[in-house]
């Protein structure tokens, strides 16, 4: 029974890994960007499950929230907004595809040769020490004069999120603040780049239905005002 139970994470890893690799290949192979985005979503969900399997529960949750929740919506939004018509007969792959396949095979061979040398053989360890750490707490200790409060080393069990929070807000506080500054800069950059600049030339080329709608709204406002 124990043997069967110990084989379960292995089986889960191989199923999730196969699905992740297969759907990532389909991301590249699919013609329509919408299909690519949906297979990318499947890959992200599989990778999040793998993170949870590797005892990184917080990273898995962040992966689901940020990637599967935020970035995917952004991608699908842009795919719908750009609304590129799929003209049959147009090339999907770039003229440099031979170089791309060559680089891919070479890179994978390099990775595989590093792994084959056995440098990453694992020591047998399956405990989860991230949840335990030693802290000093005041505990009543029996002494010849009776009991008194003394600092004692105790093993404290904490959750993954708590442990990451402690690290992030103490040891990695400066990188954390830099990351928040980076996100602010990225947000401003995205707004500035994506903004439609309403030059005089462009205002003349506004589609007629938008100008019509604006005129209707103006008339309605005047009617309400009067």
């Amino acid at each position, binding site marked *: 029974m124990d043997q069967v139970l110990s084989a379960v*994470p*292995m089986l889960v*890893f*191989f199923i999730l*890994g196969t699905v*992740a*690799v297969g759907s*990532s290949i389909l*991301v*590249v192979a699919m013609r329509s*960007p919408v299909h*690519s*985005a949906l297979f*990318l979503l499947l*890959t992200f969900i599989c990778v999040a499950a*793998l*993170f949870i399997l*590797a005892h*990184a529960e*917080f*990273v898995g949750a962040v*992966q689901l929230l*940020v*990637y599967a929740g*935020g*970035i995917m919506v*952004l*991608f699908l939004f*842009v795919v719908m907004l*750009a609304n*590129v018509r799929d003209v049959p007969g147009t*090339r*999907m*792959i*770039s003229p440099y*595809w031979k170089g*791309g*396949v060559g680089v*891919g095979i070479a*890179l*994978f061979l390099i*990775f595989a040769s590093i*792994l084959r040398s*056995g440098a*990453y*053989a*694992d020591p047998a360890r*399956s405990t989860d020490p*991230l949840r335990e750490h030693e802290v000093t707490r005041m505990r009543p200790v029996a002494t010849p004069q009776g009991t008194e409060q003394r600092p004692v080393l105790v093993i404290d069990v904490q959750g993954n999120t708590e*442990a*990451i929070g402690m*690290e992030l807000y103490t040891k990695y506080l400066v*990188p954390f603040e830099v990351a928040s500054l980076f*996100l602010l800069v*990225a947000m401003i*950059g*995205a707004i500035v*780049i*994506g903004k*439609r600049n309403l030059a005089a030339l462009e205002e003349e080329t506004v589609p007629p239905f938008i100008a019509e709608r604006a005129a209707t709204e103006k008339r309605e406002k005047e009617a309400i005002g009067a």
Partner: protein
Amino acid sequence: MPDSSAWLLLSATLFTVGLVGVILRRNIIVILMCIELMLNAVNINFVAFANRLASLEGQIFPIFIIAVAAGEAAVGLAITIQLYRLRNTVEVDVASELRG
């Protein structure tokens, strides 16, 4: 629990697929998706080594990488929308004036 080399092989495969996709495809949106795939493969490496070495550092770095990926996706998609407004397409080879 599978050993580290299985995790590293998975991560290497995902990274390679992402890199081949970046070079192969012409659609900017799919290229950005492949960049996200490559960043995710690196995250798998970090988490696998965090698990193996029982160290939290490997779980802190993916959070920063995810933040960088979110910013990169936002700016990249904004550039994509501008390109679509200018050229009415999202293929990369229509924007090759710089001859890189």
